[in-house]
């Protein structure tokens, strides 16, 4: 072997060994556990895919992740647009708010929603005022899970869209306008297509993070709103069903790796964290 090659491997070796021992091996271990049923190797998977209760949770996970992604996109796109196109003090202020939310612990934000939506919080207070005695429950519902996740994920979406919008040269829009495009046409045919890579990035990130998210659904949802991560957690903490938990983890991991593979095929994985 050539000398520089040896040196390169020596530099890379520590992190490779570290990740092989403390990351790949534990993952391999749960994979093996998931395919070591007593009667048949795939017992745990068969059980998972033939039990309605589990199927509903799996579908719910992707359903909630989908809606959260759509809501995040609808809210984040205009925000990023104003940050980039209006700019100035307003744009800077909005960008600071997004950055602050991004760096604030999920637990702090979840706690805030617990207070806001809770039985002794402002939302229920207002509802009580309109309908004394039979105000609907807001906390521990699908609504509180979705709003908590949207609030948690929106900084990722804004950052992704902002990053691609910022690269758009305003001269493109001026050129479109000078050729007779109305502002709306300029947006539709020039700005929107150029901002799409950021939209794809943001949606991929938000969907993937949401689908495997543990803390928010567990703290803000009721029994009817649990997602697959919460289910895995429950198998670990309460039921001690390692085999079932491992199979569920593998299903989740597989679904997410498929999404990454699709993204890699059409966009290129190196662009996701760019």
């Amino acid at each position: 072997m050539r000398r520089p090659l040896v040196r390169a491997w020596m530099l890379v070796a520590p992190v490779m060994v570290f990740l092989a021992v403390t990351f790949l091996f534990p993952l391999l271990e749960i994979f093996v556990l998931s395919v070591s049923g007593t009667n048949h190797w795939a017992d745990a998977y068969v059980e998972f895919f033939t039990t309605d209760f589990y199927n509903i949770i799996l579908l719910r996970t992707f359903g909630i992740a989908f809606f959260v992604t759509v809501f995040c996109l609808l809210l984040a796109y205009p925000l990023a647009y104003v940050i980039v196109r209006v700019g100035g003090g307003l744009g800077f202020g909005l960008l600071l708010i997004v950055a602050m939310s991004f760096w604030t612990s999920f637990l702090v934000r979840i706690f805030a929603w617990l207070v806001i939506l809770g039985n002794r919080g402002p939302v229920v207070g207002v509802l009580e005022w309109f309908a004394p005695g039979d105000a609907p429950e807001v906390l521990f519902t699908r609504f509180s899970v979705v709003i908590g996740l949207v609030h948690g994920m929106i900084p990722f979406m804004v950052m992704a869209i902002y990053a691609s919008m910022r690269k758009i040269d305003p001269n493109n829009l001026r050129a479109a306008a000078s050729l007779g495009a109305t502002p709306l046409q300029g947006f539709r045919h020039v700005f929107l297509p150029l901002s799409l890579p950021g939209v794809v990035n943001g949606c991929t990130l938000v969907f993937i993070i949401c689908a495997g998210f543990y803390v928010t659904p567990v703290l803000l949802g009721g029994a009817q709103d649990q997602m697959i991560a919460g289910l895995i957690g429950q198998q670990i903490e309460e039921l001690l069903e390692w085999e079932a938990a491992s199979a569920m983890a593998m299903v989740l991991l597989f679904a997410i790796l498929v999404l990454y593979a699709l993204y890699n095929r059409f966009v290129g994985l190196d662009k996701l964290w760019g």
Partner: protein
Amino acid sequence: MKSLIVIAVCVGAFIAAPLFIVVPMSFSNAPSFQFPPPGYWLGYYEQYFTDYHWTIPTANSFIIATATMLLTMALVVPAAFGLARNRFFGRSLVNYLIMAPLMVPHIVVALAYYLFFGPLHLTGTHLGVILAHTCLSVPVAFLIVTATLKGFDRNLERAAMSLGAGPMATFFYVTLPVLRPGFLVGALFAFLHSFDETTVAIFIAGGTAATLPRKMFEAIRLESDPVIAVVSTLLLGLVLAGTVISVFVRQRNEKKATMYAD
């Protein structure tokens, strides 16, 4: 455009308002979560700073995040040099492996560590959490360190060597000082990634190694402990200070850059 600005401001308010609701909550004297607070006092601040149920997890978080940061950088910096400056067979595979911990959901990682650490008696120990957090911080720090390396002009090193500096002198007098800001940012991200990490900590950081996020999770789920409002306010204050400082530093650097340009 006017209506767009209104929408954007509303979304901004949706993002910001919930963050700041924790501040009045922290001064509340209610024994549970209640807004608006019925009265104000500082009792929960005193409890946070004196109750060992809160002080120990806070100290643990700082210890674990610092160790994670050091271990992460020790692994990432050589690897980033090796990958950025050499083309070799298996290079992209190495790249994928380093990025892999970012792609696997934390709950899957948590389960894997729970089962892996159990027989090794690493569950509920500082070392276990540090190893787990290092895994998760490696890709984040790697992205930043690699980006820094890509922007480095190797002619600076060649110039130093041509003037008679040996490889060590070149590294410590030329390469490192130029790259230091990027490395510090990478280290900061590794620290924060560990300090903030919740899901894995919930499952493996029990007992004496409990971290602050784990304690906060329990305070919300099991106890409805109002001290959580104090912790939230303090964390929010840190984020606010960090944001202001980073804006200040960036403006100062830009001023410097324009000065040199003139």
